[in-house]
């Protein structure tokens, strides 16, 4: 099941694409697994079939899924590892929000960095190097 918020400013196709990509990257969707058809996805999520088709097209271009004509859409046997700039791009909005919040609240840059380091320590892991 996917969670789509139609009232959000983020387009539905972006929400769905992010969630699918996340599940492929985290291994929840296994390599080579069959994905629901555009029709089924549209029915299940109550969305326009064009939106579902667009998401598969984008993921196919990025190499996360592959469409076998007349058979269906599958998770790629070897999904791509996201390039560093793509990862940065995904993190950028969260960073913007964090920095803007810190500026408004008058929290100094060093303190923000300390908070982030502390969070990483508590998660007990370092950012993974590609």
């Amino acid at each position: 099941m996917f969670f789509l918020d139609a009232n959000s400013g983020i387009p539905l196709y972006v929400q769905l694409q992010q969630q699918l990509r996340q599940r492929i990257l985290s291994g929840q969707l296994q390599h080579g697994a069959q994905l629901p058809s555009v029709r089924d996805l549209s029915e299940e999520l109550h969305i326009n079939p064009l939106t579902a088709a667009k998401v598969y097209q984008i993921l196919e271009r990025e190499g996360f899924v592959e469409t076998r004509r007349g058979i269906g859409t599958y998770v790629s046997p070897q999904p791509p590892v996201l390039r560093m700039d793509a990862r940065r791009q995904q993190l950028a909005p969260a960073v913007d929000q964090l920095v803007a919040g810190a500026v408004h609240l008058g929290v100094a840059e060093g303190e923000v960095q300390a908070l982030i380091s502390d969070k990483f320590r508590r998660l007990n892991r370092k950012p993974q190097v590609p």
Partner: protein
Amino acid sequence: MSEAPIHIQDVSRSFNGVAVIKDLSVSIKTGSIYGFLGRNGAGKTTTIRMLAGLTRPDQGTVRVSGSDPFLMGAEERQRLGYMSEKAMTMPFARVRTVLNLCRRLYPNWNPALADALIAKYGISPWKRLTLLSQGSQRIFSFILAIAPRPSVLLLDEPAANLDVVARREVLDDILELIRECGCTVLFSTHILSDVERVADEIGILANGKLRVSEPLDSLKDSIRQVRFFGFRGGAPSGDIPGSYRTIRSGDDITVTMRIDSGPSPEALAERWSCEHEARVLNLEDIFVELSRN
């Protein structure tokens, strides 16, 4: 783009000397679900009635599936589904009587579909239309519009008077129709969350003119509300060119603008030596920003 199933070009229409539609042009491609938005009195119903061949434009061209809807013969008209915003004709007829009549009128009428739909929505075939609830009357009009499996479907406020569950079901039936026969749908509504789910294109009508007509995704991707603040050399005066709306409060300027054309927020901030922050707008915000005078 004369092959677009719904095509309106340079259309104007006034009533008693009051211009309701001014130089309207819209083109909707096959298989699209077009959400037609506008405030009360913006001209949505007039536009839909012109497409249905019920109102003639004073000027300009209206084409549905390549034909002038005002001159369509019975056969072509069969392929055009229309649900009016108003209550239905024949209020004293029974549901079953109306269905039987339509079955004989439309060669493509799908009786099994019509029966399945009235059962699904809990409409008794033996009730007189006038005794159905407001919501059931709307749904029955909707069923009559979709059961002939039209290639172009015009829905004027299909969701009005429906409870949340029925509204979702109606939207699902519209989607089902699209999946099954790839027809083209134009629907007007005030309920923006409906549009977000099912529409792939939207038009916003304000004062008889189309403010935008484009894919919903591109609209959300390209319109931002940007606040410029901390001007080091004083705030610029006058309207910001290319913006939809400009609000000034104190030393701040908040601009609703496109970021896919014209100067970017970064470029403007640099030009004015100030800071800026941008906010993503949802459809409701965009609608309000674009519909205000």
